[in-house]
Every structure is written in C-alpha cells, then in structure tokens.
C-alpha cells in the first residue's frame, strides 16, 4: 500500500517528466540530420548508408549526451526528492514511523517506486529518440541503440539515488535537491578537471554516455562493467538511506 501512496504522490510529476523527456530526447537527435546549404540549415531525411551511419553516430554521441545529461539530472532530482523523502520532510514522518512496518520497508518501497519511474522515463525517452532517428534516416541502422537505455538509466538512477539519500539525510527535500545538484556538478566536472590537470583517469558516468563507439561495433564493447559499477553506486544509496532512516529520532 505504501507503494501505491508513493505512486499516487508522484504520478503527476512522472507523467510530466515522461512527456517532457520523450519530446526533448526525440528533438535532441534532429540536429544530426540537418545539412548546411546555401539557404541555411535544412532537414534532410534518408540518404546514403554512410550518411545514415553518420546521423546515428552524431545523434548518439552529441545530441543525446547533452540532452540526456539534462534529462538525467532533471528526472533524478525531481523524482529523488518526491515520494518517500517527501514523507521525511514533513511532519507526516510521525504517521509513517508509527505504522507497524520495518523502517527499511518504507525506504526500499519508496526507492523502488521512484527507480521504476526513472527507468520508465529514460526508456521511453530513448525509444522516442530511436523512433525519431528511424523517421529521419528511413531505416533502423542498429538495434544496439537500445543499449543507451541502461547507460541513461544507470546515470539517472545515480542522481535519483543520491537525491533520495540526501533528502532523507537532511530531512528536507529542498536541501536534498541542493546537495544533490552540487554533488552531480562535482561528479561531472571533477573527473574532467582531474584528468586535465593531473592526467589521472577518474571514473565518471558521463564517460559512459560520451563514447558511443560501441554502437557501431568496431571492436568496442558495450561498457558493461561501467554500467554495473554505477548501478552498485546507485543501489548503495538506499542501503545507506535505510541505515540512516532506521536510526532517525524525532
């Protein structure tokens, strides 16, 4: 029943984000099909096999990365601060903590509902981008494109998980969003800075998205270990949240 309550609380945000992300990600691949002519930028559909490959490559490697990062952070921050962390925020926590269930039940149920929603949004967003590419190029260049789903999914889950955790830790959804946004910016910028100034390779989930060579084969494999690693990072958030929530005193 708590799952229903979490869904009930977040359903309007879920639907809004679902539509917004599907539209944004579908539009994010359109620039890849633009051609510069004497009359300016023109949308050209179809084309030679090499052009089709280029359109899919550009779409996956730039448009989706930029907009995907935006979608990831937006979905993660909004859904991570809704549902269960929202119940910690308000004085409704008295009601929740006096129901006869283990506290971990509320944490995992709330996390699972939000995680399901984030994955649904990213999946449908990628599907919308896929359909737009098929429309623009007139064919399915590669089914591997759906490999973007777990990459986007895990990226969104990391942001969602940390917002969820920080919302419970601070017992304030607003603070949770602020801290999570700060952490997200650090996660994005620090690996780049560390690499540039000290030439040290630091892991970043944006790297998973920024290198779409696996999409075309050429001996580059899908970054399964990266996805698994960041999945563990995302799943560690509810584990810590459960530990914290079990010890909350009012």
């Amino acid at each position: 029943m708590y799952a229903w309550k979490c869904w009930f609380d977040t359903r309007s945000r879920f639907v809004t984000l679902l539509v917004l992300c599907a539209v944004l990600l579908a539009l994010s691949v359109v620039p890849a099909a633009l051609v510069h002519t004497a009359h300016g930028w023109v949308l050209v559909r179809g084309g030679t096999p090499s052009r089709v490959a280029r359109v899919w490559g550009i779409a996956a490697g730039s448009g989706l990365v930029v907009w995907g990062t935006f979608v990831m952070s937006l979905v993660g921050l909004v859904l991570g601060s809704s549902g269960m962390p929202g119940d910690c925020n308000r004085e409704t926590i008295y009601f929740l903590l006096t129901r006869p269930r283990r506290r971990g039940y509320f944490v995992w149920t709330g996390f699972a509902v939000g995680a399901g929603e984030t994955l649904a949004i990213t999946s449908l967003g990628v599907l919308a981008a896929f359909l737009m590419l098929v429309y623009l190029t007139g064919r399915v260049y590669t089914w591997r494109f759906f490999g973007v789903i777990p990459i986007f999914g895990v990226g969104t889950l990391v942001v969602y998980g940390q917002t969820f955790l920080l919302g419970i830790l601070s017992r304030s959804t607003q603070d949770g969003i602020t801290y999570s946004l700060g952490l997200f910016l650090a996660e994005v910028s620090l690996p780049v800075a560390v690499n540039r100034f000290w030439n040290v390779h630091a892991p970043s989930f944006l790297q998973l998205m920024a290198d779409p060579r696996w999409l075309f084969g050429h001996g580059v494999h899908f970054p399964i270990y990266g996805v698994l690693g960041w999945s563990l990072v995302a799943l560690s958030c509810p584990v810590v949240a459960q530990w914290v929530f079990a010890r909350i005193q009012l």
Partner: protein
Amino acid sequence: MQYPAVHAQNLTKHYTRVRAVDGLNLRVPQGAVYGFLGRNGAGKTTTIKMLMGLTRPTGGTVRVLGGEWQKDRLAILRRVAFVDESKLLYGSLTAIQLMAFNRSFYHTWSDDAAKRYAALLEVPLDQPLRKLSQGNRTKVALLLALAQGAELLVLDEPTTGLDPVSVAALLHILTDQNRSEGRSIFFSSHQLSEVEQIAGWVGIVNDGKLLIEAPSERIREDFRLVEAVVSAAPDPPQGAEVISARRTDNRWRFVVGRHADRFAEQLRSAGAIVEVSSLDLRELFLELVGKRQEQCTRGNAGSTPARVL
C-alpha cells in the same frame, strides 16, 4: 498476563542544554483513561515521543503493553494507535484514501467503526486533506486512530483545533471506546475540563518531572489545600502526604494528598491559623505548576514524584 498499558521508570531525556524529561515515573493501568497534564514545554510531547519509540531515552525504561521498543517494536505498533501533536497527514490524499492506506497495516481495523466515527465527528471524506481546515484534519487523524482497533490510544493534545461540538463528540467516543471495549487511553491536554470529564487517572508534569499521578477520584476526595499562617512549616505527621508547599511571607499553602486533617491539626497545635479546602483539578494544577513566590522542599514536599493510590 496483567501488565500496565504504559510503564515508564526513571525516564530521562537530555538534549545538549535542556533536560526535557528528568527521571519521570509513570504507570498507566490497563483499561484506564489517563490525562497527562502540563504547561507548554513541561515535557509532555517528549515523554510521548519516548513512549511511542520515536526518540530514545537518555536514561530509564519504557514498557508499552508489556513490550520494550528495542525488542518488540512491530508488535507494540500493531496494538497502539497514535495521534501526534501536529496531526499532519498526507495532504494529497482524501480521508477515504487514507483509511484504505491505514487499513493495510492493521488486521484489527474496522471499516464499520471508521464509518461510524466519521459520521459522529462529521469528517469530510472525499476532499484532499490539504483543502481541509486544521480542525477537520485533526478529525481525520483521530478517525484513523479510533478505527484502528488498538488496545492503547496515545493522543497528544487531541482536541486542539476542534470546535466544542466536535470536542464533545470525541470525548463521547473515547469514553465509549474505554467502557465498551476496554481500551486504554493516554492523552495529553491543556484543557483541564476535558481531563476532568473523562480521565480516570491524572498525571501532572512540570519541568520534565512528574509531580503527581493519581486517580481522579482520589484527587476529588482526598486532596486538600491547607492554608496556614505560621512562621515555619512543620514536618508533616506520619502518613500525611504534602505534595507541595508555597510561602508568601508567613502565609503557607500546602497541597496535601493524604491525611490533610491530621496535618492541619498539627499546624493548629503549633499555633497556626489554618484553613482546609477541597481542590478541583484546575486548582490543583495551578497550585502545583503555577508561578511560585517561594518553594519549600521541607518534609516530603517536592521530593520524588508522588504516585497516589
């Protein structure tokens, strides 16, 4: 097995600079309606949070329906209904949705009782709680607790924000739950008349200490205010129970819980002019926690919290 509904021993809660609850002993018999009184900041809500396992005591022990929070948390929560001070519930849900939500946690939940209490308290069932007035939100919180079928109801200032008609309806329901179903009820309140009306037991807390715990009947029958003009307060005679002593110049006011006549006689024999009068709950409360010009702790006055049986 017969155990008290609530049994707190030497309960203490210290924050960094505040002793919110300080060695409080409390015993709520099963089947009792227990009114927990105190001024703002006296330690009522902190005590209730500890009784409900929402905050860990710094010291002392709490047993609720015979169970300990650390070992029996879920078992206790299944048998206890709680309404907190804020009475804030999920604003997006209607009372009907909240009832469905709450029902899933309790096998003792009764839809019939919920409908009956909703009608008695005139609860708007189909509007989201955020659109309801504070009073109506309070009614929904109470409705959820009442229909839960709990053995013990713990209510933190349950009548706050309710209109007089709703207060009367609630007190009627609580009395009915207590008499017909034997439920124990522990509630805090500032409304002395409500406590006087339904509580069989009264506890008065001040500065984190329980000043008195006694059956209401005993307060009415045995408690006396002894006023005396005397130079120094004598030691109370054997058996007399001086609960508090206040002095203004050479005029003393004693609250005596037992053998007030014997105590008055002793004062007279010492040459004092003595007047003895009975106390209602309001007068007792004001005597115990009202502002004091001078507090005397001589004899047994102001010593360990008194449990008067």
